[in-house]
């Protein structure tokens, strides 16, 4: 058996492993020590750690140092150490590793990782960034009523893109911290790809709602599809940033999707049942080439409005009854 120690950072993250195949080691600042630590508050010979050859239990002994040794924040001169005990020498912290305990099982390598390799190519990311810039400029152009000047609009579009970049940058920083690898290129690639998908879905929604008279069900289908795409995007952002099990990623991803979608939907629904002097209708018009469906004739259109009159009458009657029973 061996003595295994971990050097910890202030945030309890493992910085280094040390494994000694000896029954006794000396820790200190002196050059002949088995574990030499560069900490000015550590004495030349600071602590001696021994392992019992029979039961492999580990003991320590402070070498009468100036600053002493803390075990789990308590000053001790000597004693027995258990797995996960933390020794503090000067400002340095060492964790005793229980070598009897099995480590957690390996995470299965993801096939996805391999198939998404192309996203980490800088060329792809730059191409996607430029393509997104062009797309948003084209949208800005078709939305403009006044004379359109590309150079006036460029700063605005780029500003928006800079704002959007906050997401991949945050995930890249978290990746760097927790995973020692930022993968910032992949993060940017999936951001632009997701936005392309959103734009595509928006156009498809417009086409369907224009041609099929804006049925109410379409709004819900759109909401579900948008939420799924958003979930996929968050899932991938986490996939690149952290090593975690798929289950955990699914849970965290769903939570984050809900955190984004629920407020958006509830703000949209806010006041929808309030009284308004303006009707709520879909005003999308598309050029002749997108008109996929033959037109109805005037009589059919007008006759179909009968249901609208009936629905309103029924609703007024229902409300009248509800009011009456409230009065009683």
């Amino acid at each position, binding site marked *: 058996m061996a003595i295994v120690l971990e050097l910890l950072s202030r945030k309890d993250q493992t910085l280094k492993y040390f494994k000694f195949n000896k029954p006794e080691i000396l820790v200190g600042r002196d050059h002949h020590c088995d574990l030499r630590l560069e900490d000015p508050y550590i004495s030349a010979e600071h602590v001696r750690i021994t392992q019992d050859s029979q039961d492999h239990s580990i003991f320590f002994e402070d070498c009468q140092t100036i600053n002493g040794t803390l075990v789990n924040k308590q000053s001790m001169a000597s004693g027995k150490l258990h797995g996960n005990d933390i020794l503090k020498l000067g400002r340095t912290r060492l964790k005793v590793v229980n070598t009897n305990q099995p480590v957690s099982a390996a995470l299965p390598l993801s096939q996805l990782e391999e198939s998404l390799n192309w996203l980490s190519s800088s060329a792809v990311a730059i191409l996607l960034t430029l393509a997104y810039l062009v797309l948003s400029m084209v949208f800005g152009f078709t939305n403009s009523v006044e004379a359109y000047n590309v150079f006036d609009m460029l700063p605005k579009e780029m500003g928006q893109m800079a704002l959007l970049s906050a997401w991949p940058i945050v995930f890249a920083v978290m990746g760097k911290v927790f995973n020692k690898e930022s993968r910032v290129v992949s993060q940017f690639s999936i951001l632009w790809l997701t936005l392309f998908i959103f734009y595509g879905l928006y156009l498809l929604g417009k086409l369907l709602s224009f041609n099929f008279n804006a049925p109410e069900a379409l709004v819900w289908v759109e909401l579900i599809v948008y939420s799924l795409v958003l979930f996929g995007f968050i899932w991938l952002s986490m996939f690149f940033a952290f090593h975690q099990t798929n289950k955990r990623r699914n849970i965290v991803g769903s939570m984050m999707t809900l955190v984004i979608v629920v407020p958006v939907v509830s703000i949209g629904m806010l006041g929808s049942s309030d009284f*308004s002097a303006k*009707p*709520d209708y879909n005003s999308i*018009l598309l*050029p002749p080439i997108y008109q996929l469906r033959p037109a*109805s*004739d005037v009589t059919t*259109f007008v006759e179909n*409005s009968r249901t609208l009159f009936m629905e309103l*009458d029924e609703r007024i009657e229902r409300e009248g009854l509800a009011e009456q029973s409230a009065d009683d």
Partner: protein
Amino acid sequence: MRYMFFALALYSAMGFAQQTAQNLFSHYQSALYQIRIIELGSGNKSSIGSGFQINDSGVLVTNYHVVSEFVYFPEKYRIEYLAADGSVGDLSLVNIDVVNDLALVQVKSGSNSADFFSLSSSLPEQGSSIYSLGNPHDLGMIVVPGTFNGVKKNSFYQRIHFTGSINPGMSGGPVVNPEGLVVGVNVATAGNQIGFLVPLTKIHALIGTKNFTPLAPEDYKKVIASQLMVNQQRLFERLEQGVWKSNELGGAKIPTLEGALLSCWGDSNSADQEALYLSVENRCSLDEEIFLHGGLRTGGIEIEFEWLESGEFGAHRFYDFFSGSISGAGAGNQAGKNDVSNYQCKQDIVANTHDVKTKSILCLRAYKEFAHLYDVLYIGATLNHESQGLISHFTLAGVSQESAMRFTKQFVGAIAWQ
């Protein structure tokens, strides 16, 4: 001797005319009343108007809009009069005519004045002097001399055009000819000496039945509903019998009503040098609406067309702009949460027999207290061209299902290309 008699008669007639303004008031003031709507909670007046007695049993004529608060909330208000001698008493509501803004009220206690106004049998000639009586801004009863200028043109809801100041508080007061006979009732002003009166015939029609038993409060809304229903039927008959002509607007032909029922205005942005598109508008509407209460008007019609075209925009940019132009349409009449439901809409792509393809959106809201009356809003945009199109739009307030459907069918069917 015969000549002498004629001269005497002429003299006395002239003398009467000169003295009219001075004498009318003192002669008739005991038949004039201030009408007050008293809010029961505070015991104070919440609005005022004028009224005049028309028979010896204490029946007064006033405007519907003077007593509208009471009609809508009979449990929260009562009607009170203040007579010339300072006496005060309660009034009960006998009958209403919301379409012509008239109401009959009756003194509840028997102590009404013996004086009353008689109605003229005919309207005076244009240019004649007439005198409006009333109590403006609670300042006391006054006489306003003015000129009779005939029945207003371009109106479905008939009004006499009176050249003279009518001020708030004078509503419901009588307008008399020099003989002291009533020819109209003060109702509205357009400022600058332009006043409007409810014409004589409408008063005759309301009191014609001589049935002065007060309405039961629970019947007020039913009476309004049936009057609105009959009125919209008359209005749409007039519209359908009118001569509709096809007028050009941009590249389209739009239906416009000949004659004086609707008043129309036009506009365009052709003076705007920087605009990348051309917009030409044609808007027609009924000048008057029916007042039901402070937050509710009905009986109005608006018809609007806008031609849009652009040589600069491609199809995509034009249709994005076109979509923006048809969004946000709203009701033509004022109505609140307690009066009407929210709008519900239906839309479709519709082609008429002139090969005009439109995205047609029809929205309705129902009146909560008047069953089977609706406000209708239609907006349509043509889909035939790459970068030009016609927006057609109308709003109808307080109409029946049949009127609305017939009108919509006629309207959508009438649009054509040049």
